[in-house]
């Protein structure tokens, strides 16, 4: 049986989102895939903020926005936990055996303006 879809919340009741565009800087232009990066972000955030802390951030690494060629991507979170998410990203210094660092390109409230920054 097909599951009934949930009625969409009114805009005023919806969670306000923020989009963080970032770039991964690595040794000798190493390329990383989505799953490696996602695992690193989740592990660091769970270590740093804890399960309860992460639940408050509504963080999500957007799969369709990750470009492995230029190593740029977009992370979505709610507007109240931008600082927590950025601080956690700053604590990632390795991805597998490679040393990495992040550069924040832009923080925005709409996906449209941030996509322009990535292109």
């Amino acid at each position: 049986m097909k599951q009934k879809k949930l009625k969409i919340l009114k805009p005023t009741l919806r969670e306000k989102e923020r989009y963080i565009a970032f770039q991964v800087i690595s040794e000798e232009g190493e390329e990383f895939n989505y799953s490696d990066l996602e695992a690193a972000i989740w592990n660091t955030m769970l270590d740093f903020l804890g399960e309860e802390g992460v639940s408050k951030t509504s963080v999500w690494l957007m799969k369709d926005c990750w470009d492995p060629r230029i190593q740029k991507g977009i992370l979505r979170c709610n507007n109240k936990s931008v600082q927590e998410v950025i601080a956690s990203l700053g604590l990632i210094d390795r991805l597998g055996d490679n040393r990495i660092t992040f550069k924040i390109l832009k923080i925005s409230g709409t996906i449209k303006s941030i996509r322009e920054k990535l292109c």
Partner: protein
Amino acid sequence: MNFYDLHLHSEFSEGESSIEEIANRAKLLGYEGICFTTYLDEKNKIKETKEITSKLSEKIGIDIFTGFEARNISELDKLVKLRREYDVLLVKGYDLLLNRKAVETTEVDILTHPEYNRRDSGFNHVMAELATENDVAIEVNFREILNSSKNTRANVMHKIKNNVELCKKYKTPIIICSGAVTHWQLRDPKFLISMGCLLGLKLDEAKKAMSEVPENIIKMIKERQDKKWIRPGVKVM
């Protein structure tokens, strides 16, 4: 807004990366200026470092300063006498007597991680008052948080939070530095600002700790290196 990191170590002191690697990375991450810190044992290399940094500064387009970090009271006394020969004077905090001496000395610019390797936070209300009076900035060191984990990180952050709270109460300048020893430990200024927010600063206070406070220190450096300058508030007219 211009961001500065005034506590970095290159291969000339305890660091692992070259000055060029660090300066290039700082430029890429959006810093306006950086300061390479060394110890008194490396005093002979200061001329060599200054030559390299001035060439790099022009090539890369970033302000590069040189600083000394005093590790004990005798080193601090010697460095105070040589104060006009270098840019920034930092004091490596951990010992209570040294922390106290640092905040009492007007020549000192930054007291780095007063809570380093201590069970307490190494900083109290008396020191906070003195630091405000003598315009000594108290450092929030990102490397301490980055290099620790689990319970150690929680303890370090707790002690830094206590110090930040005291500094806010007594209006002591707070500076956020990466304390990086390799160019991989250097972080985008936005990460340091966010960490500052998690440690009890408001967003504008955290931004100030990365831009206005270091800018004031740089302004003081320029004044001090002027031949007409004698001591704070005294100048040949």
